């Protein structure tokens, strides 16, 4: 078995059983992640990218259920483990950074308390050692006056500073994997640049692998080594970020790239993807993107497309990929 392989997700299926019907939020998704690697998951709302992230930690609540597949983390299938095992893993070996820095900290505890909590749960340190580690962590994420700020409450921090605290908490137990779900979406662009740079630096320094979930392809391009593109619960394209952005193989990836207003770009008009993301209760037959796809042919509406390997480490869920390695 490959020593380097940290996470191997195979045929993951997470369904939500609602009164209106079954929503296949994540449908047979497979991907892997090596140690120290940065993987991006990109897609629009409803694509299943956040549910994928939560499924890895088994944080799916009723009416959702993981109905199939394997999540093999360091050789162990997490889906077969007890809830108790998961609790000891969360925050220690896999930690998570959420989108909204305003709501993911508890307002009635000091930042120091919340940072220390993770150390108490997962590490055997004395009180003195814990305090030193807390200061070290806050320094690492670039918070000035760490000793003083430990006694402050979350509302005394700005949005960007709170996100730094959350990153510090995520890093507290030196996890092997950090899942960051839209970590900079709620932040201003100058603060976003600070946080993205910080996350990149820290993942290089600590050797943690990072899964970055975002809707912003430009952020993906800046930060990640590989990217998964998701649409309506399917993984439609995966590959090395640079290759995917330069030569998209799936029509949806191409559409996304063309519809983004990029700052370096001078074309006067954007090329939107026609139509809207389909209702998850009434997905089209065959390929889920067929309704909006300009290359759509009759077979796309009848059969589900195959996952084709079009290059090294490059897979695409399409009958007619736009790009193939020569």
């Amino acid at each position, binding site marked *: 078995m490959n020593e380097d392989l940290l996470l191997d997700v195979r045929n993951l299926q997470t369904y939500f059983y609602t009164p209106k019907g079954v929503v296949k939020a994540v449908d047979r998704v497979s991907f892997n992640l090596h140690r120290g690697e940065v993987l991006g998951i990109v897609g*629009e709302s409803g694509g299943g990218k956040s549910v994928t992230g939560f499924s890895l930690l088994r944080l799916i609540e009723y009416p959702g259920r993981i109905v199939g597949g394997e999540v093999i983390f360091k050789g162990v299938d997490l889906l077969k483990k007890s809830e108790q095992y998961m609790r000891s893993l969360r925050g220690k070996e896999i930690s998570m950074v959420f989108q909204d820095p305003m709501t993911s900290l508890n307002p009635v505890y000091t930042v120091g308390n919340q940072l220390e909590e993770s150390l108490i749960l997962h590490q055997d340190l004395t009180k003195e050692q814990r305090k030193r580690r807390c200061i070290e962590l806050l320094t690492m994420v670039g918070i000035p006056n760490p000793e003083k700020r430990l006694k402050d409450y979350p509302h005394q921090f700005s949005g960007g500073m709170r996100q730094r605290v959350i990153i510090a908490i995520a890093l507290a137990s030196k996890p092997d994997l950090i899942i960051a779900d839209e970590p900079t979406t709620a932040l201003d662009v*100058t603060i976003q640049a600070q946080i993205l740079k910080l996350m990149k630096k820290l993942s290089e320094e600590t050797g943690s692998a990072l899964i970055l979930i975002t809707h912003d392809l430009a952020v993906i391009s*800046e930060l990640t080594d590989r990217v998964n593109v998701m649409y309506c619960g399917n993984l439609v394209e995966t590959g090395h970020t640079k290759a995917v952005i330069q030569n998209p193989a799936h029509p949806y990836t191409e559409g996304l790239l063309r519809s983004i207003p990029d700052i370096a770009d001078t074309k006067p008009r954007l090329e939107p993807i026609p139509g809207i*993301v389909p209702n998850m209760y009434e997905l089209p037959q065959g390929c889920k993107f067929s309704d909006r796809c300009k290359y759509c042919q009759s077979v796309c509406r009848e059969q589900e497309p195959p996952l084709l390997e079009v290059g090294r480490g490059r897979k695409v869920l399409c009958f007619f990929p736009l790009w193939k390695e020569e």
Partner: protein
Amino acid sequence: MKGAPENIVLEVTDLQQYFRVGKGILDELTWKKGRLYREKLWVHAVNGVSFKIKKGTVYSLVGESGCGKSTTARTVIKLLDPKGGRILFQGVDITHYTKKQMLPLRKQMQMIFQDPYASLNPRSQVIEIVRNPILFHGIETNKQQATELAIELLRKVGIRPEQASRYPHQFSGGQQQRIGIARALSVHPQFIIADEPVSALDVSIQAQILNLMMDLQREFGFSYLFIAHNLAVVKHASDYLGIMYLGKIVENGKKEHIFSDPKHPYTIALLNSIPRLSGKNLDHVQPIQGEIPSPLHLPKGCHFHERCPFAREVCREVYPEERSVGTEHTVCCHLY
């Protein structure tokens, strides 16, 4: 001082807007040198903003949250009363107009809001939402004709006639924004304020709405005041730009000039912070440090000096005058 006034839809001079904070006297009490003082706290949202919008052009105000761009927009169409300065709408001074005096002008200025769902009445059918302003402002007096006009407008923004009797919640976010646009167009306005019209939408839908807004502008020839935080979006949509920081416009000019030759250190920092599709932009630039200061206590001197890598002594003391650095390109910075 200005060109032909009939070319200017909106001229704003030295606009001021501030709000009281604190609900009671207790919030305003502070200890100073052993004595109890009562200090009134004001949020200085807009601190002397001046700009002009030419007929048929798109002017964008860009800045980060808290820079006062939305407050400026709400003040210039008098949803808020200005605390100072002057607003000329098509040559008429509307600064001190009352609500009643504004009423006939309302059909000439319309607004598109950020949150499409919150800006539509959930209990009205879409057709009513678009038809009501037509009837109210007397564009059409006959209900039948008003309905026809409303359906025509909905068709123009991409809502099919058979969908017109539905309610707002039955539409997706992008479609709701289309309905908001149809409502704004219903009274044939000459000036539309769009406050972050696409920031709540998914990327593939953003492009649809931006294109629609630009097509309609070409067709009807109205002017836009576009409020946005995303420079990439603005680049596709505007003719002129004003970059705002803490209640002031720090740089003002044609889009091409600002993107190809930004002058103000804040504009440069803002452009550098944007993640790019080509990747590796952030590797090479040092993002500006720190965060936007509180509008409760404005910094002395240039508002940006605490974060500015080029700040000098004078920047800490004096707010820089607006100076010209090219055709229709002005900047407030001591470096020039």
